[in-house]
């Protein structure tokens, strides 16, 4: 994660107190834990209607639960009755099973609840960015799980001296796991990947992981049915998709780079680019995804769905 983004000098530890931390060595139910955390935020005076918040969290679980790191989960929602951003933490060294909407369960040892007012769509993202950065520090989580008391947990976070970033960057919201192709792959593998993964675009990387280009379904169709063929009103000569057949005859021999859009023509941003700039690039270039690079090394992908999920439904 980028450490160079300017901060606005708001320490993460100032957003919660030891009263909003629970340390539990006994097994807790996921919903019990959530309810307790919401109550703690309510007790701080930031939240008026605890049951409303609980209902919203449970109802929006499909997009309100983020598995941030192994054993770290963040529950979040924007609550109409929130006065200001509220954070509560649950440190459970024995782990708690949290259930995703996919039916999958994961063990969580640090659960973070972030509730934000409606009018602060960026507040959650900045908070989760700070939490993610702090948790990625070497040994932080290991030592955290050994801390048994809320006051000591708070001290631990305070001593870590993590501040909220001034703005969220592309690196903070990108997906780091994605499907890709190698520049040595053939067109056949590209078509298989489109069918298998159900996605519309795939980055093409060289052996070093550098971005060579992007291959898209649109480009594939355009290769088979270029503009000069579509001028004809009468397409009876190609009712059997003859132009596609020509390309398919060569699919195993044709390298995927033959049909890929070169990297310099694709929408890319540096990881330090502000997230709002990413949204602007999407609108300006009329694209639904943007690649995040560092000196041409592909780091991640941001889709328009990520913008909606992380900013509009944060």
């Amino acid at each position, binding site marked *: 994660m980028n450490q160079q983004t300017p901060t606005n000098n708001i320490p993460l530890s100032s957003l919660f107190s030891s009263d909003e931390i629970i340390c539990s060595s006994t097994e807790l139910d996921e919903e019990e834990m959530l309810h307790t955390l919401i109550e703690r935020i309510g007790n701080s005076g930031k939240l008026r209607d605890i049951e409303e918040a609980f209902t919203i969290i449970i109802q929006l679980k499909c997009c309100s639960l983020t598995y941030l790191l192994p054993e770290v989960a963040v529950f979040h929602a924007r609550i109409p009755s929130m006065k200001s951003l509220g954070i509560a933490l649950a440190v459970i060294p024995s782990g708690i099973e949290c259930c995703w909407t996919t039916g999958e369960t994961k063990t969580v040892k640090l659960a973070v609840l972030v509730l934000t007012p409606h009018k602060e769509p960026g507040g959650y993202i900045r908070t989760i960015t700070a939490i993610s950065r702090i948790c990625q520090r070497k040994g932080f989580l290991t030592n955290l799980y050994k801390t048994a008391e809320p006051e000591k947990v708070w001290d631990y976070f305070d001593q870590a001296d993590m501040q909220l970033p001034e703005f969220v960057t592309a690196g903070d919201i990108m997906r780091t796991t994605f499907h890709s192709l190698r520049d040595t792959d053939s067109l056949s593998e590209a078509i298989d990947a489109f069918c298998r993964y159900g996605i519309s675009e795939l980055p093409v990387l060289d052996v070093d992981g550098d971005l060579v280009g992007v291959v898209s379904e649109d480009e594939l169709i355009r290769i088979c049915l270029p503009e*000069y063929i579509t*001028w*004809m009103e*009468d397409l009876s000569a190609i009712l059997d998709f003859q*132009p596609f057949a020509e390309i398919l005859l060569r699919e195993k021999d044709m390298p995927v780079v033959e049909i890929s859009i070169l990297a310099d023509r694709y929408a890319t941003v540096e990881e330090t680019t502000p997230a709002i700039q990413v949204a602007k690039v999407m609108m300006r270039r009329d694209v639904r995804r943007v690649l995040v690079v560092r000196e041409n090394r592909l780091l991640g992908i941001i889709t328009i769905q990520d913008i909606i999920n992380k900013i509009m439904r944060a």
Partner: protein
Amino acid sequence: MSSKALVSRFALLMLISLMIGALSHFSWGLNGQQTLSVTIFLIIILATLFFWNFRLAIAFIGLPVLILTDALKLEGFKTHCSLEVILFLVGMMVVVGGLRDLGFFTWIIQNILKMKGMTGRRFVLITAVVSALSASAVDEVTSILFMAALVFQVCDVLKVRPIPFLIICVMATNVGSAGTMLGNPVGILIGSKAGLTFEDFMLWSFPVMLLALAATIALLMAWYRDEIAQLDQRLAQRRGHDFPLGPTVKVPYMRGLMLIVGTIGLVSLHHRIELLLELETNTVLYMAPLISAGIVMIWRRERARYYIEHDVEWWTLIFFLMLFGVASTLQYTGVTTEIATSFSSLFEGQSELLMPAVIVLSALGSAFVDNVIFVSAFIPVVQELTGGVSVHPLWWALLFGACFGGNITMIGSTANIVALGMLEKRYRTRIVFMEWFRVGLAAGFTASLVAWLSLLVTSSMMIGS
């Protein structure tokens, strides 16, 4: 555009127009009506250029202003608006729509893509020649639309920068548009006003166009030799893998071929038919595309409405109609006679300089002003200078200058603007003004020089014919 920019432009155009108007009165001795005509004409033309997106609105307002100030009569507008030229263009646009639907342009592109042993130089030569000849056969805009698609297809497949090859096609298109009356609206306009026939164009213009094209292609091949070498390399790599440059399909091209051959055939024989039927000069010329268009609309009746509503560029044609009428104010008030007299006096005893002067003036005018606008205004001057002789070198000088000058700047011709629009839309990139201007000036100069030298050789034959 900001209000400040709007006001600045308006103030500038008013200043220029009023200054030239005042100059024409006090220095050149034009009378009141002539001065008014010049001033209003300049305001209209400059406003059209400064506010290009509003050109039709400006023409709509400008024409009544001329009529209401008695700088033009309504009858004069009706006589000079060249409705026959507009109808000619309507017909051709419908025919082009039909050709596109019938796969004629698809067939041409596929034939180029299928060629064996394609090299960089061969590709450039073929695309340039096809651009020029298709501009001569249909029109420059249609030519660049489908040639640009070909260039983009090949450059995308080979991963090379398309700009040099697009520029080559555009410049060849502009040169080729001088070959016949069909290539450029200025061609049909000059033919109409000068009483020139299609045969006259084939005899005096087409060969010059071929020479100018050869010179232009040679220049551009040398200018872009590095890019052509890179294209060559990529083509060789692709040949090595036996990958095609694009898919090809079976195109029922005969129908399209019959349509274009029939249309051009009728146009080319118009003079013979007119003589046979004792019709006025160019009657059949103007009617030929309408006949073809009518046949297309019956044959492809389910698409007839589409051709009229979408393939005919009504915005542009109505603008031309108004523009031709506006330009006639100079003739109506006698300004063109004065200008022609001045020209004659200037070149008295040196009439051999008149031809290059017209070429240079029309080339420079075309480079910075829409060539139809320039030619519309200049035609009455040339009419005076030629003394009513139709096959006169000055007409060809005007034609060549107007067409070849379109290569000098990015805005020099409609084909340039269309190509740049396509480039920007597809690649989100623009050509820098100087990148075009340097090669454009060289190409424009080369072609104009060839035209002048050709006219020097042929002019004596012309006036006697």
